[in-house]
């Protein structure tokens, strides 16, 4: 084993690509703005600087560890250096922390505190730029940008979109779409992954909390919530609940305390999606037309495909997303009651996703001109609402969601993770509905963190070739391969966000490095703990199909593609 010395202690080098990783392994949380393990190394923020035994200062993120190296991470010189960097960053930063949407969650704020900057000696004479509110998903505030470039690299490297980039140079540098266009005029898909990596509020979630309170406070409105699978695993993060724990019970109670009239589970919509999408796949396999079938649950993916690969538009499943299916069904369910009581039903969809905010505005998601989902709020906005009410989330009792849309199978739960939609569809298409079959499917290659997985599954007599992708850059590569005839599939599942919705653009990201694994484990546990694992065994489905949908699957559950 080879070793290097970090702060007078020997630390083994185990194939880390940079010194920063070795330092963090040694239990030192060295500060960074521009370093993310999944992105290329940029080395711009200079927060991760270390000093070697000759007094040389360099960035640990962009230096390889070498055996025998001796470095220190917290000398007087380094402390002053970091302090000055933060002070200079703050000198041209909007410092309205108390009214900032990211107050208390801002890396710049917390690092300024950690390194001990108590005053900024310099005046901010940077020209104030307008906010970009053109996207329904995210808001860009260039005045809060510290030019770390995390959003630029995420958009280009992970998502293959590249809607924003640096422009100009020196003191005039900004991050912006080409020609200072609005985000809505670019290829932005609204995934919100830029907001996830942004250390400040330069990119933040477009919030719709006020609209929800207005609806709740209107006595003539029936306010109905639906909660997506990934939300319940993340909402507790900000309330001291262990990461990855399923907080659905508490969430239902909290929503009722806030004044929601009905609380439903988006998982029910996912169960409907399993049925509709399995039927669609079976039909296409039989006819051999429009293969591969692409999943349509992820709106960022659908938009990406429409922007860059419109020639594949027919391959996308005609199914609405689980959110869309459930909202349409809820509106149908209350139609008569609304007329009798003189009320309107308002569907609030609680999602881990910023792109869902755009999905609900798509005319192909409307039913006869009616917008089915009235508003989408993300997990982060929900947390803010819970705080506004003052609910002690960790202390409240757990309650169950309302019927008939409050009960769903385990297959629906795993829609929140990459491979989950495929796994659910395979379960549904399997003739053998036993425990052994569940296990066999779970180890067939559908699970795992790789951004590209492929497997062949037996459906009836036929071998079905399946690909599972997360990250749109990888999805783009796959489409290129399919186009070039280098790859051939029958079914392709794509989720835009890395590892799926559990790490969506609307989720909270607390400190610590086990968020990903805890949520992954949490979602599979939620599946295991659901008494009904197969969609077809969800007793409420038949009821809803018979009494609410009544043969109107095409109208309510599928995208309205004629308009």
């Amino acid at each position, binding site marked *: 084993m080879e070793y290097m010395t970090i702060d007078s202690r020997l630390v083994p080098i185990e194939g880390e690509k940079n010194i920063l990783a070795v330092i963090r392994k040694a239990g030192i949380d060295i500060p960074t703005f521009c370093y993310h393990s999944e992105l290329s190394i940029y080395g711009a923020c200079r927060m991760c600087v270390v000093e070697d035994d000759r007094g040389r200062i360099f960035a640990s993120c962009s230096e390889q560890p070498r055996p025998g190296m001796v470095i220190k991470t917290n000398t007087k010189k380094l402390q002053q250096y970091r302090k000055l960097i933060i002070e200079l960053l703050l000198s041209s930063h909007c410092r309205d922390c108390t009214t900032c949407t990211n107050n208390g969650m801002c890396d710049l704020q917390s690092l300024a505190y950690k390194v001990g900057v108590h005053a900024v000696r310099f005046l901010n004479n940077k020209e104030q730029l307008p906010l970009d509110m053109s996207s329904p998903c995210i808001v860009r505030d260039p005045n809060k940008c510290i030019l770390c470039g995390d959003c630029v690299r995420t958009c*280009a490297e992970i998502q293959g*979109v*590249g*809607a*924003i*980039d*640096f*422009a*100009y*140079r020196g003191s005039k540098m900004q991050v*912006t*779409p*080409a*020609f200072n266009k609005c985000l809505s005029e*670019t*290829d932005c898909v609204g995934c919100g992954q830029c907001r996830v990596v942004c250390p400040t509020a330069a990119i933040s979630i477009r919030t719709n909390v006020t609209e929800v309170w207005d609806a709740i406070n209107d006595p003539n409105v029936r306010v109905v919530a639906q909660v997506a699978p990934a939300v319940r695993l993340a909402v507790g993060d900000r309330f001291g609940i262990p990461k990855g724990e399923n907080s659905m019970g508490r969430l239902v109670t909290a929503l009722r305390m806030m004044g929601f009239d009905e609380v439903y589970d988006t998982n029910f919509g996912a169960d409907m999606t399993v049925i509709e999408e399995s039927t669609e796949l079976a039909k296409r396999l039989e006819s051999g037309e429009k293969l591969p079938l692409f999943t349509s649950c992820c709106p960022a993916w659908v938009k990406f495909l429409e922007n860059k690969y419109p020639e594949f538009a027919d391959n996308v499943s005609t199914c609405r997303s689980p959110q869309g299916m459930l909202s349409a069904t809820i509106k149908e369910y209350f139609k008569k009651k609304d007329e009798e009581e003189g009320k309107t039903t308002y569907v609030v969809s609680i999602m881990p996703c910023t792109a869902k905010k755009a999905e609900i505005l798509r005319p192909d998601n409307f039913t006869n001109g009616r917008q089915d989902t009235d508003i989408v709020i993300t997990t982060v906005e929900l947390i803010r609402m819970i705080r506004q009410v003052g609910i002690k989330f960790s202390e409240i009792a757990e309650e169950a969601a309302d019927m008939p849309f409050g009960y769903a199978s385990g297959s629906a739960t795993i829609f929140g993770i990459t491979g989950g939609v495929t796994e659910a569809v395979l379960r549904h298409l399997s003739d053998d509905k036993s425990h052994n079959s569940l296990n066999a499917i779970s180890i067939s290659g559908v699970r795992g963190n790789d951004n590209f997985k492929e497997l062949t599954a037996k459906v009836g007599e036929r071998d079905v070739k399946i690909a599972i992708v997360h990250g749109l850059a990888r999805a783009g590569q796959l489409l290129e391969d399919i186009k070039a005839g280098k790859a051939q599939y029958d079914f392709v599942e794509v989720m835009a966000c890395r590892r799926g919705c559990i790490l969506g653009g609307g989720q909270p990201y607390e400190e610590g490095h086990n968020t990903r694994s805890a949520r992954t484990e949490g979602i599979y546990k939620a599946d295991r703990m659901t008494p009904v694992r197969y969609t077809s065994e969800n007793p409420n489905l038949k009821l809803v199909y018979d009494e609410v949908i009544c043969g109107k699957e095409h109208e309510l559950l599928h995208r309205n593609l004629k308009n």
Partner: protein
Amino acid sequence: MLDKSYYQKVDEIINIHGKTKAALIPIMQDIQAEYKYLAPELLTYVAKEIGVTEAKAYSVATFYENFSFEQKGKYVIKVCDGTACHVRKSSTILSKLYEELGLSKDKHTTDDMMFTVETVSCLGACGLAPALTVNDEVHPAMTPEKVSTLVKELRGEANE
């Protein structure tokens, strides 16, 4: 909307350099050499053709002072403001030009598209300070009076 001929010309330029990401800068340079400026529509077109994002192409184009998205006048006057020219009062040369042509720090080109005035950091003609160039022709040891004469001459030449 630019005329089709612009895109044909750009296609020719792209063909010379090849459809690779690395060809972005030479292509932009050739377009600018052809039209004296880089029309935004053409940059967008080039980005798409060679497979870089529009935002990336914009990033590169705005990084270099040399690229301009604004259409230039018939005479491009570059006033040197390097150290040597600066200490020999290039600023009076510039303000005289602005005055004569009705231009300013924010307005670089006259409405009749005759003159564009820019400053450059050094022309490498320090011995001739203060210097300026008109379409790459060097005019040495300028004074405000010589500026007036020069503008008159250029206007006369254009009217002939």
